[in-house]
């Protein structure tokens, strides 16, 4: 049983720098990597009846896009480098979802990029990284 490092990607370069850092740590410590992409979504948002009828279909499409565009290429690259790696795409609040996943997977560390949120958004709602530091059940590595 290998320990796991959970990496949160957001499709930006910051996420990829986080992945590089996670790879380095995982290799050094002989750990596995789980790549995660959170699709921003809230169970308490408001929607139209038409959107609701389409929701299931949209969700499938979103998951498929996340898998093909973001997760699969990175997973395959790490696998080719001889890493133990798996991936997951999930809808939800970015920080809360990563925390829940870290719990679920018993991850030993969460790695995320610092950029991704705009300064305004960070100031108003708090960035994902800051929220993670507050809530995570394990150490959090924030990569600049």
């Amino acid at each position, binding site marked *: 049983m290998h320990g796991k490092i959970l990496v949160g990607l957001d499709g930006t370069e910051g996420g990829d720098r986080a992945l590089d850092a996670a790879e380095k740590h995982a290799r050094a410590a002989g750990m596995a990597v789980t790549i995660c992409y959170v699709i921003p*979504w809230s169970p*308490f948002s408001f929607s139209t009846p038409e*959107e609701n009828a389409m929701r*299931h279909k949209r969700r499938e499409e979103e998951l498929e896009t996340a898998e093909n565009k973001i997760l699969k290429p990175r997973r395959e690259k790490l696998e080719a480098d001889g890493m133990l790696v798996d991936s997951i795409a*999930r809808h939800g609040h970015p920080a809360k*979802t990563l925390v829940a996943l870290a719990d679920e997977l018993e991850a030993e560390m969460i790695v995320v990029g610092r950029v991704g949120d705009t300064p305004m958004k960070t100031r108003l709602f708090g960035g994902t990284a800051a929220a993670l530091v507050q809530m995570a059940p394990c150490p959090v590595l924030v990569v600049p």
Partner: protein
Amino acid sequence: MPRHATALSALCLLLAPGLLSAESLDQRIDGWVTPLANMVERIILFPLPIPGSEANVPFVVAWLVIAAVVFTFYFRFINLRGMGAGFRLVRGDYNDPRAAGEVTHFQALATALSGTVGLGNIAGVAIAVSIGGPGAVFWMILAGFLGMTSKFTECTLGVKYRQENPDGTVSGGPMYYLSRGLAEKGPGFARLGKVLAVVFAIFCVGGSFGGANMFQSNQSFQQVMGITGGEASWWADKGWLFGLILAFFVALVIIGGIRSIARVTAKIVPVMAVLYITAGLVVIGVHIDQVPAAFALIITSAFGVQSVAGGALGVLAIGFQRAAFSTEAGIGSAAIAHSAVKTRHPASEGLVALYEPFIDTIVVCTITALVIIISGMWVEGAGMSGVELTSSAFESAISWFPYVLALAVVLFAYSTMLAWSYYGLKCWTYLFGETRRMEITYKLLFLFFVVAGATMHLTAIIGFSDAMILAMAFPNLLGIYFLLPVVRREINKYWQKYKNDELPRFQHGVRVK
């Protein structure tokens, strides 16, 4: 079926010259639609005399109330028992993070509410008070309470018999549970189910033109005219212009496919609802000393014989009728909105749906009624009805509130129209097939009625709107009686799991049980 479409577009063309030749356009349109509206009203709101009294109760209202009472006893007061479970479901206690991204109970409820919260409650209470006295409010609240069970029943069925289309979308509602549900009972029932589904769809299309459209555009026009100076307003004889503007914005979404507008509306409407409730509570809070007297007045005049034409039973009939229009419980519309939820237990959505009449009739109506009664406007402002009465009642406490209310009314009307244009469209395509031509035909008709609604008088509108929306209850409830055992099985199955705490629970996305 194309003949049908051609006939209606011909009517639109006939009307166009009238629209263009100036002077009293409003009267012209009014004169054209009113006789038709009156005829429909006479047929559907056929009055049943109440024995031993001079009062009448429209047959369809009796039909709705009897069903709500029967269901409430049949499900042993699930409307009371189920509220705790419903609340936990809405709060997301049972939302599996692996199903994140699907439609949640909260979203299904919020969507359905945006279609029902609005004029039915704000204007409906005022209408009830102005023609039935304060006592009508008591019956309205009672009807809302019983209506919770009707909503529970239809939304459970809506989820149970929804159709998952090959393209991944979901279609649900009475059309589907009537046809698919009854088909399970044998070939005779299958035929009945098909007929009921078609009849329902026809009435639903009518309702989407009537109460969910003409009534909405009419009341928002009245409100805008009211705050800009009443009869002296520049708008006073320009109902058609207001109708055209409103129709333009509806068209942006339903024809132009501008989703962002629909999405913004979906977000603003709950804010307006909270604002309305808060303002109501503030008014009530300021006059808190008068609240016991107001409640006393509501209850005594509910049973008092002196109140209005037809005595106590007449008041009851008025209250029940306004409530039916406000909650839409038993009408079947909500089942269309609720059926998109992601759940393995149809009964769970039924429990969530209990909150719809609770919020939109019991909470909102009680607040509106208290404000109207405390203000005394229902006595002083004799002759006022609908939103006008609610507005002046709020004005007597918060002078600038009519402006906010006008905005709220227009937005509520707009969101109700958008929601119902979807319900109507689903029924239309259920009848005529999901072709692009049929969809655009429906949408154009829908827009025509937006304009027509703004030009008509309130009395003609109320009758026609009530008739078309309430008529949906005939096929809907008739079919539901046969499906009651199915709902009972579903709720028993779910209730046992709920009681024994066998359902997986989650907190912050982590399973706690």
